[in-house]
């Protein structure tokens, strides 16, 4: 039986897309190869390392063990959607300032997972952050600076929210 293609329509970082994909197209490959959004990295390709983490309707998922067809109708957020023009997202700023990365390979996944963590709990403890980011592997930092960056970003985001309200 010849494999056919499927038409999917989805939103990526607020931009609508309609695309023809093979059913076996992994979401991470769709983002990187078809949309050119290479910010999302591919690591283990079997759901263990977390570097391919993106948000699907606000929830973190592994895009290497998700087919693009499963994202039909969904809103996807990737690391490319975090900055507002030249203005970095508070998480990006804090990862930079606190040196929450060395090689940077895990960073896109870490940032997206951190978005979800802070959306669920705007004021987590360092222990809560460490437990939550256990979903994503980092082989350079030992997680300490990543934890500090997430805590720092949480404080900034709370302050911004208070000013806004």
């Amino acid at each position, binding site marked *: *039986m010849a494999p056919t293609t499927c038409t999917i329509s989805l939103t990526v970082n607020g931009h609508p897309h309609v695309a023809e994909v093979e*059913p076996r197209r*992994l979401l991470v490959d769709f983002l990187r190869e078809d949309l050119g959004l290479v910010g999302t990295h591919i690591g283990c390709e*079997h759901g263990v390392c977390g570097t391919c983490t993106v948000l699907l309707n606000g929830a973190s998922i*592994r895009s290497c063990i998700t087919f693009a*067809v499963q994202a039909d109708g969904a809103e996807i957020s990737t690391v490319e959607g975090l900055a507002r023009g030249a203005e970095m997202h508070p998480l990006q700023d804090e990862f930079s300032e606190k040196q929450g990365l060395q090689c940077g390979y895990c960073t896109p996944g870490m940032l997206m*997972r951190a978005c979800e963590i802070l959306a669920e709990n705007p004021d987590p403890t360092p222990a809560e952050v460490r437990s939550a980011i256990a*979903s994503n592997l980092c082989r350079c930092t030992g997680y300490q600076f990543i934890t500090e960056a997430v805590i720092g970003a949480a404080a900034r985001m709370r302050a911004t929210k208070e000013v806004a309200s």
Partner: protein
Amino acid sequence: MKPPPFSYAAPTTLAEAVGLLTEHAEAEPRVLAGGQSLIPLMNFRLAKPGYLIDLRNVAGLSGIRREGDILIIGAMTRMSEVERSPEVAVAAPLLAEAVGLVAHTPIRNSGTIGGSLAHADPAAELPAVALASDADLVATGPAGTRRIAAAEFFSGPFSTALAPDEILTEIRLPLWPGGHAFVEFSRIHANFAVIGVAALIDLDGDRIGRAALAITGVAPTAIRATAAEDVLAGADATDVTAAAAEAAGAAVADLTPPGDLHASPQTRLALARTYLRRGIELATSRARNER
């Protein structure tokens, strides 16, 4: 690695999904729920289904509801939804505790209750929960719908009583009136557990009235520890230490667990004893506190 090519359909009704399974039987079709076990297997090319039937658009397969003393969870309900559900926390706290131990949040955001049960990984938590809870699993095939007792459902590693043309649609968990505990040992936080124990304890005054225990990691499937349950029936619940140790010993007496790179048979037996004891003690103390 990438999966080999396959054909794909995302039907909107259960009848259509079952029909596709039958119609494309020669392609060795698989049902796609959350894909958190199946897609890694396909990436490794350990599984090469020629046809995937995605259940995500099938109406009525997701949701949590209560019917009297039964909690009913749709097969496509995401693990994270179960984890956060106040209804599950009250009606099936054993399931709530176990689901929180399944992999990591990003996996639980996609992974489904039915997917995990139908995948039947011998190291997984949910089969033990189903066994200890005396749950029924509901499946629909061309001949109609049937209920399968959890005790009959798990037939071996990664194999179940589901026929190739049947789809798991829901799990029915009878409410347990007493205390619960799901405890497990894994080498790394959120990795597959080497040993897992589901424990349910109901009290009769100051004594244990009824116990239900299931263990993972000691046999080709999760198993009920009936010898331990018998030891516990009638035991003093105000000081369960000795009875828990005796029950744990009885549970492992006839076991011949496998050895692998994660743990030798001896290690598994020792861990099973320890975690059974801990599970029994925790479930008993919760049963006493909840009165």
